[in-house]
């Protein structure tokens, strides 16, 4: 689109050769930067897919745990980790969504004055809070101050701090897209404000809100820092969020990462080099990526059914 060449007297002004060259260089650099960004994405996804596929297609990956399996043993599953991640994220979602929706409603439908400005600012700050700081805060409150034990639910609490800003931001944006005409139409029918919000505004923005929630879930599902601080990793099945170490997909990746490298074992009288831990690590990584990508895809799908256009 930039290579429109104009022939004849219109073309060559003095210095135009260099200008054109600069233009061409810029175009190349700009296209190149996009291609450059594709390199790590494709490379990373390919690595995880090619190295993880073996593990997740093996028997018992989705039904077994890592109980009693050392880095010298093959096999074992990731069910304990999937269960832990799903539970922790589910509890986090149950806590985050109502708070986040209310905050967004406040900011769009009610908020004026200093509290609204402070809230907006704090949502921005929460968006940028490092996950390790959120984890330390929960630790300082529940473990140091109230002498609680590390457990899965504390991870959920730390994740709440990371999920709320994501859901608030998208919900806020969606609520602002709901035309004021609909609110006015509702008021003009004699519908009180709260019912206008609950029955007209929220349903109209619902698909966008759902998208925000799903993106929030995807964001926290892969969080690792809170796991390190707030719950021990367990290779066993533990579906109890409130007691004991618990497995999780990021935790499993970290655990297997600690035993990378090849191991020599005796098989049928021969020394064989194997990479059980690496296989499982990439398997867990692939499982996590599939989970997160599925959530992202779901978010796209919901967003495409939106009643309000962005």
């Amino acid at each position, binding site marked *: 689109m930039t290579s429109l060449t104009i022939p004849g007297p219109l073309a060559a002004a003095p210095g135009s050769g260099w200008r054109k060259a600069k233009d061409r260089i810029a175009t190349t650099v700009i296209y190149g930067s996009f291609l450059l960004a594709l390199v790590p994405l494709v490379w990373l996804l390919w690595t995880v897919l090619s190295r993880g596929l073996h593990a997740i297609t093996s028997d018992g990956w989705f039904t077994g745990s890592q109980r009693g399996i050392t880095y010298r043993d093959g096999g074992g599953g990731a069910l304990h980790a999937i269960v832990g991640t799903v539970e922790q994220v589910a509890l986090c979602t149950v806590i985050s969504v109502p708070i986040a929706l209310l905050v967004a409603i406040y900011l769009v439908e009610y908020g004026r004055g200093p509290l609204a400005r402070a809230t907006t600012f704090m949502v921005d700050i929460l968006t940028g809070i490092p996950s390790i700081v959120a984890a330390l805060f929960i630790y300082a409150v529940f473990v140091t101050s109230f002498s609680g034990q590390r457990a899965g639910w504390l991870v959920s609490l730390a994740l709440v701090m990371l999920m709320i800003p994501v859901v608030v931001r998208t919900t806020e944006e969606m609520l602002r897209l709901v035309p004021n005409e609909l609110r006015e139409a509702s008021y003009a029918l004699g519908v009180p404000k*709260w019912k206008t919000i609950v029955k007209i505004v929220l349903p109209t923005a619902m698909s966008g809100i759902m998208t925000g929630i799903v993106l929030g879930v995807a964001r926290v599902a892969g969080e690792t820092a809170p796991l390190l601080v707030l719950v021990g990793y367990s290779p066993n099945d533990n579906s109890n969020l409130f007691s004991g170490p618990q497995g999780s997909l990021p935790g499993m990746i970290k655990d297997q990462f600690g035993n990378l490298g090849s191991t020599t074992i005796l098989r049928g009288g021969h020394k064989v080099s194997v990479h059980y831990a690496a296989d499982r690590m990439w398997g867990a990584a692939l499982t996590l990526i599939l989970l997160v990508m599925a959530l992202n895809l779901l978010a796209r799908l919901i967003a495409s059914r939106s009643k309000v256009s962005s």
Partner: protein
Amino acid sequence: MDRTPSDTGTARLADPPERSRPAAAGSQPADRHAHAPVIGSSQPAAIPSDDEPVFGAGTLGGRVGPARFADRVLAGLSSGAGAFLVLLIGLVTVFLVIRALPAITADKSNFLTARTWDVGGDTPDFGVLPLLWVTVLISLVAMVLAVPVAIGIALFISQYAPARVARPVAYVIDLLAAIPSIIYGVWGIAVLAPKIQPVADWLSRHAGWIPLFKDYNVKGGTIFTGGVVLAVMILPIITAIGRDVFERTPRANIEAAWALGATHWEVIRLAVLPYGRPGLVSGAMLGLGRALGETIAITLILSKVSNAGAFSFSIFNGGETFASKIANNAAEFNSPAQTGAYIAAGLVLFVLTFAVNAAARWVVNRRKEFA
């Protein structure tokens, strides 16, 4: 002054004022009160009998109760949730400070400037300077790599690519943000690091006299590797904001530049980049905030060095950031004094990211006032 719907795009719908009329206008209040009951009692006859059901017929006052109560409940709950968030950030600060203070007061050295980290014994002796240095250095490496590429991609999406290409491209870049950071970490150290080692070797062989490129014989787990991975991780953040501001360049500015006979690149340099600069600055700062706080990827990638106190200026050295220091030792949070030292480090990180994020928002908001 007719009010068109578009006027209210940003205006908030307000609560109906309880009583909007200034006192001066209601100059005959006694009269009014004398009226009201009369109206109330004389109206029922006006209720139509042929049409059922009837709402709001007769007196306008009356049943203020339930609707108003529910209105207050939702208003209260939602503003309460807003206040809760404000309180939450306050609590984070308070708790981190409370838990960090004893450790900082017990510290034998100056907490901010000391280069040692010895928190296990009876006389803790620690400081965050090396952590701060590595954190800042690795983030700067990431910024230097990510910002130009992000600007390029943002320009590609907003100025070069046709609409039907731009959307999928934007989506693909967003995918980079969806990948969990632990996966970046394992990929970075296990796959990427060996592949970019030759670049590091070449640089330190030919430019090793520059402190920045001095070889410390750390293979793989260097600040350089960590910076490259961080750059990929913050790329989508900066790109998203850059794309946003570039797309909002007023059509008229762009057309004016075209009309001057500018080349495509000149249009961008004359119209698009100047317009987008504040947005880019804040986008870059948000990326920086993310880089400063990134934990697990850096923890997995960076090699700990034996003598962290003698910190170097080289990007080919290892080290520990605030976040990776805390993460590396999270499993051994035993005594409150020891944990307090790590919480103190977390507090500094919190203050640092808070400042960077607040500054980024400030740049954006200041710009909004102009727009």
